[in-house]
């Protein structure tokens, strides 16, 4: 476990090698090989570390590799604190799970990308892997960091990589704009996060998670009021909304789909966007002490889940659907954290990472097959052409829809159970969302894989081209949809298996008691959320529902999901015309949803226009008032000069001549100082020295 610092370092090294040398010198296979090897090594180390962690008595391990910021005394609310940040990594169950997700899915996506990005020119290809590795480096740093500041390095780093990767095809304006949007929106969140971190230091005098948690544990729960911990949590949550695309800062994530699909899968589905959830979970103790903020978190999560799901209902871009689905599922996670079910949130995070990465990669495979076509209306009947993709994506969809025994069912159900216990209204929203989720996911599946083929026609591949195999089909001549190469389907298979089995680590108590298996992940993760609360473990929110209620809830949610699927089947497979009918019948609602509730327009009208308007206002002020004053002064001067000129010329002629003569001579003298002759300047210097020496002589010997 002492080697965990190598886990982020390996991808970092890969990025350095590829970035510094590779872009210029390496061939595609070499670059991809280096990147994959770095990730693979990292994965192996993670597995190793995780295994050790499972076997260890004390499930927390901190490795300090260097002293980053030496102790600096800074004033805090509780006196003078030593502002000291060691470069330390922390391995505990939560971060252990996260590194497994990041390295595991990261490795698979690296493999997938090495084939998916093959049609890129060499430089871009290497650049892509450089960014990807760099992302993993920062993500792992974020996850492993043992203090807010180390985490913040990773936090900002993944933001940077996200920006770079969204704008990977920077020559495309929409991509570049999307990158900028993501970056700027994230900055707003980061601002909150940084303020939160400042406040943490100001309050606790340290930035170490563990010390903060221990300190916070001894402070009273701010149940009634809105104290300093609440403020910290709120600020941190603002950061989380930015990174994890929650209302109101979710707008960047759908646009981020401009990036290459593996990027969407890795960054904007499986890992980076969950950083916010991770961060909140990491500071579980803090949030526990701020119930009001918890409630805000829960509401925001639930509303985000619902809103994103509704938008997802009508999107036709395959990746946009998945993007809104991601936002929605992230909302679920926040809902879970908001109701105190941190382990449920983390559990859902993990299962979601599997099936959402799977879905994205599958959609990438489809897009790949359709020659970069993303509109689902132009697809259809794809299962005929790409059975593997179909099967795996189908599995993913079932998982996300929450059909047992696929993973999504368990995690979602746990969240629903907790929410039910905590707040029935939120539970209602969540259940509706679950139904919608099932609907739009199967809408996606049905539109894409079933029905008639609606895409463009293609020339039949003649025999001479047949020899070239699949890889040759990109770019030049498209020979119709086709199954993706082995390198792309393998990760799909692996993730599909993951999407099926990942849920078994968190079997709910009701079923668990029935078949004699405990909720493994719940117990495993528990120490991470109660760190520093040695005696308070039992006090922590648990599920106090009876098994009957649980069973009922499960059955209900499965029913809702099944309804969603059925609705989708009816509308898009059996009677596709019904969908169009709906569209016309509910035109207004459809328009609102298609335009994503006009949120972008709203932001544009308020934030962007507002900034512009205030800028213009300042400019007007500058031009009108400041310049006016200057010009007025100038005009006054001119007027006065004219008056004095008249006086000079006509009234006091003799005096004027004298004054003029003095000025002429004077200017001549002064101008002579600026001769451009170095030696004259030297004379001046010498004169100065001479004066000094004279003063000295007089003062010392005469005076």
């Amino acid at each position, binding site marked *: 476990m002492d080697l965990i610092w190598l886990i982020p370092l390996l991808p970092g090294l890969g990025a350095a090698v590829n970035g510094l040398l590779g872009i210029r010198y390496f061939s595609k296979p070499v670059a991809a090989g280096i990147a994959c090897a770095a990730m693979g090594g990292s994965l192996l180390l993670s597995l190793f570390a995780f295994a050790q962690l499972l076997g260890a008595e004390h499930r927390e391990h901190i490795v300090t590799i260097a002293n980053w910021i030496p102790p600096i005394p800074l004033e805090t609310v509780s006196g003078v604190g030593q502002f000291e940040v060691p470069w330390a990594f922390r391995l505990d169950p939560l971060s252990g799970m996260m590194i497994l997700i990041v390295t595991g899915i990261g490795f698979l996506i690296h493999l997938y990308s090495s084939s998916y990005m093959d049609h890129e020119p060499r430089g871009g290809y290497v650049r892509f892997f450089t960014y990807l590795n760099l992302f993993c480096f920062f993500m792992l740093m974020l996850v492993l960091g043992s203090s807010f500041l180390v985490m913040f390095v990773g936090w900002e780093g993944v933001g940077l990589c996200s920006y770079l990767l969204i704008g990977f095809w920077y020559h495309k304006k929409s991509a570049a704009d999307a990158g900028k949007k993501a970056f700027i929106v994230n900055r707003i969140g980061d601002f909150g996060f940084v303020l939160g971190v400042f406040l943490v230091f100001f309050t606790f005098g340290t930035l170490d998670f563990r010390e903060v948690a221990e300190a916070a544990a001894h402070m009273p729960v701010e149940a009634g009021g809105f104290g300093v911990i609440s403020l910290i949590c709120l600020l941190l949550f603002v950061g989380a909304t930015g990174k994890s695309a929650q209302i109101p800062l979710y707008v960047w994530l759908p646009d981020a789909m401009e990036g290459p699909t593996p990027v969407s899968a890795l960054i904007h589905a499986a890992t980076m966007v969950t950083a916010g959830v991770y961060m909140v979970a990491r500071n579980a103790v803090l949030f526990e002490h701020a119930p009001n903020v918890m409630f805000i978190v829960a509401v925001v999560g639930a509303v985000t889940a619902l809103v994103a799901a509704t938008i997802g209902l009508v999107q036709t871009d395959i990746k946009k659907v998945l993007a809104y689905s991601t936002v929605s599922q992230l909302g679920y996670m926040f809902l879970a954290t908001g109701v105190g079910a941190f382990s449920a949130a983390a559990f859902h995070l993990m299962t979601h990472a599997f099936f959402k990465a799977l879905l994205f990669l599958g959609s990438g495979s489809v897009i790949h097959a359709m020659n970069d076509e993303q509109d689902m209306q132009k697809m259809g009947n794809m299962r005929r052409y790409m059975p593997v993709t179909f099967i795996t994506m189908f599995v993913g969809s079932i998982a996300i829809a929450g059909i047992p025994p696929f993973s999504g069912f368990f995690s979602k159900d746990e969240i629903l159970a907790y929410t039910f216990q905590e707040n029935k209204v939120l539970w209602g929203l969540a259940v509706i969302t679950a139904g919608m989720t099932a609907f739009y996911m199967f809408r996606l599946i049905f539109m894409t894989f079933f029905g008639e083929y609606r895409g463009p026609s293609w020339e039949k591949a003649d025999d001479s081209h047949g020899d070239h195999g699949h890889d040759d089909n990109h770019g030049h001549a498209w020979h119709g949809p086709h199954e993706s190469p082995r390198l792309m389907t393998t990760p799909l298979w692996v993730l599909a298996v993951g999407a099926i089995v990942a849920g078994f680590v968190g079997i709910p108590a009701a079923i668990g008691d029935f078949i004699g298996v405990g909720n493994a992940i719940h117990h495993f993760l528990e120490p991470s959320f109660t760190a520093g609360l040695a005696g308070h473990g039992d006090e922590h929110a648990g599920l106090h529902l009876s098994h009957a209620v649980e069973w009922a809830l499960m059955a209900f949610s499965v029913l809702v999901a099944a309804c969603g699927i059925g609705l989708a089947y009816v509308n898009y497979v059996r009677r596709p015309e019904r969908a169009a009918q709906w569209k016309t019948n509910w035109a207004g609602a459809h328009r609102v949803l298609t335009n994503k509730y006009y949120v972008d327009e709203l932001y544009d009208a308020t934030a962007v226009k507002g900034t512009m308007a205030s800028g213009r206002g300042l400019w007007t002020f500058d031009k009108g008032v400041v310049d006016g004053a200057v010009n007025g002064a100038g005009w006054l001067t001119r007027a006065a000069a004219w008056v004095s000129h008249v006086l000079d010329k006509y009234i006091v002629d003799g005096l004027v001549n004298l004054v003029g003569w003095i000025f002429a001579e004077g200017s001549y003298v002064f101008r002579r100082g600026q*001769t451009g*002759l170095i030696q004259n300047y030297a*004379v001046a210097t*010498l004169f100065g020295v*001479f004066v000094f020496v*004279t003063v000295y002589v007089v003062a010392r*010997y005469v005076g």
Partner: protein
Amino acid sequence: MAEAIAFYTLSILILGLGVAVITTPRTVHSVVFLVLNFLCVAVLYVVLRAEFLAVIQILVYAGGIVVLYLFVVMLVNLKRQPEEHQDPRRLAKIGLGLSGAMLVELAAIVVYSYSREPSSVTAPSPAFPVQGNVEQLGWLLYTDYLIPFEVASVLLLVAMVGAIILARREL
């Protein structure tokens, strides 16, 4: 006695050659006088028991820097003498006067202060573990003055690079 003879002889030579440097019309002659001047200064250093400096003075100044001047003088193949053109705004005479006045003032300070309190002050350097001028100088340079010494080497490197860049034909 011996020191006095040496000092006065050398002083006359140094000052005379110094005057020659700045008065000779031909630049090459100036350079030659400069070399001779530096040699005399080196001998003065020997009188002052700074043998190492004396040798360095010859090696670096006379053997190195002034050769550079000589090269430049020979490369700068003047088609017209620089003294042909004079800017009317120069303050040469004032400069001359000021320099003279400075000299008088400085001399007055020195003479006056020394005639008052003949100096016998010494502030010996701390004991060295080595003997001899070179060794002691080396000791100082490589212990107390190591960083300035290294900085000086960097300075020289930078100057070398700069001079090469400047002197390249295609600037």
